[in-house]
């Protein structure tokens, strides 16, 4: 019990003093998660929107596939991307393995289905009469799509926040594709795993506190936007 309390007290002092190593790890985490969320949003929102807005053969099958991909473990994606970017992989000549870019690629693949599936849900919830209203007011297909997207905007933002929450707390991809290299690819979760292995808890607890704080912030934002969807 003393170990936990001592670690907790030391961790608080680390957080307050903005320990250089801790700040560096948090920065790497925020950076890779930010980029992967950005890329996943740039791809996932249009995919989700098109799937929800358009009618085409195989639409339900595609939605089922996306929903299935929501449950894929991070290590499976880590392994999959590793096969491509390792020296022997087809993209090996890019030398991406154990770089932040590799983590971003893996994390983007991880949350792409999250963004797309949540966007589909957000667009599908929009009353069909909005489409009818836009059309009878003379809107073309693009203008109608814009109207629907605008009505679903809070739901789409909630999708992005949920995806960010998922990616900031994952460990498998960061470990397998980033390699947990100090000051370079060490993220909050991989650092915590390492500190645990070393048996030193101070930094792990401090990072855990920051991660929890960030997750709490994300959830607050998520519920704020979800609330606006409902209202």
């Amino acid at each position, binding site marked *: 019990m003393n170990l936990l309390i001592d670690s907790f007290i030391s961790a608080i002092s680390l957080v307050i003093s903005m320990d250089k190593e801790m700040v560096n790890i948090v920065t790497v985490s925020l950076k890779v998660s930010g980029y992967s969320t950005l890329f996943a949003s740039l791809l996932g929102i249009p995919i989700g929107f098109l799937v929800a807005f358009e009618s085409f053969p195989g639409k339900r099958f595609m939605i089922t596939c996306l929903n299935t991909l929501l449950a894929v473990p991070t290590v499976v994606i880590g392994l999959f991307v590793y096969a491509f970017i390792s020296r022997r992989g087809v993209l090996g000549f890019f030398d991406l393995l154990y770089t932040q870019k590799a983590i971003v690629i893996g994390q983007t693949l991880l949350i792409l289905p999250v963004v797309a599936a949540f966007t589909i849900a957000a667009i599908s919830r929009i009353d069909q009469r*909005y489409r009818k*209203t836009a059309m*009878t*007011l*003379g*809107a073309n297909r693009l203008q109608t799509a814009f109207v629907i997207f*605008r009505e679903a905007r809070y739901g789409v933002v909630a999708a992005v926040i949920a995806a960010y929450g998922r990616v900031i707390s994952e460990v498998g991809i960061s470990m397998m594709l980033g390699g947990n290299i100090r000051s370079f690819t060490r993220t909050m979760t991989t650092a915590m795993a390492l500190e645990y292995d070393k048996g030193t808890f101070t930094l792990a607890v401090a990072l855990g506190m920051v991660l929890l704080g960030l997750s709490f912030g994300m959830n607050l934002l998520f519920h704020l936007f979800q609330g606006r969807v409902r209202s």
Partner: protein
Amino acid sequence: MLFKISDLTKKYSDRTILDIPALSFKKGAIYGLQGPNGAGKTTLLNILALLEIPTSGIVSYKSESVQYSEPSLQPLRKEVVLVDQLPLLFTTTVFNNMEFGLKIRRIEKEERKRRILKGLEMVGMEDFAQLPAHQLSGGETQRVALASRLILKPEVLLLDEPTANVDAASARQIKDASLMARREWGTTLIIASHDRDWLYEVCDEVMHLFRGRLIGAGEENVIFGPWHSHKDSLWERQLPDGQRICLPGAPGPDAVALIEPTSITPLTETKRDASGANILEGIVSRLTLEKMSAEIVATILIGNLPFTVKLSTQKIRQENLYPGQRVTLHYSHNSVKWL
């Protein structure tokens, strides 16, 4: 002709929603669409608004057959606009809602503002421009939806039950604003409504839709089964107040009978001829002047079943009919049609 419809059908799965062999609408006229729920009024309005594609048949607009491709439909939709029965406003301000259609038509900013203010004034909502649309009541939403269509100065304005879900004051404003569009811009109005009095008051023509088919000018008395076989090849149905109506030649027990309002004669108590079986007793509940024929449409309640009778003003005077008076209805067997 502005709209011309030939051999139009609309089916959902195997169910026929509309089956109209021929129908046309003249420019600048006001048309009323009557019929019970599920008659196909909304579907017909959606097809006229170019929002739904008919299963078969031809819809012509301004003498040209409508081509159901998005690039062909979009310019036409700028001329033909629909106000839904339960319209939605976008989740932004009333002003932005009203501006949407004007922006699409590339109307200049100053003109947009002028038209929006005029539109709001037409429906008595001048002070609502900057309010969030989702804060409006149902009646206010309906009025803003109508105003946002009126300021587009459409060629055709389609109104689907515009006064069904609003209070009397809102209904009055909606009615007045709709008629102003015809007066000011020669807009053709096609109104689906259960408000018979309003339709007869303002429409140049009223049509009656029943089970997807046009069955007449809107005033026909529709009597549902079940019919029971009676003597002398007559079919009988008991009315809600216990009286029995006997008609000849029903095709089956579930057939629907139509009786022309001109073939029913109301007689006052003193002149009652009790010899025939084709007699019913009721109370005059309403007398309405029909704009198109300048005749009087009398609604006679038999139990709670309204019968419509069409009479000249002279006949009304002669029989001294007034609401509340008990009358005997004499109907002709020859005028009965079966569906």
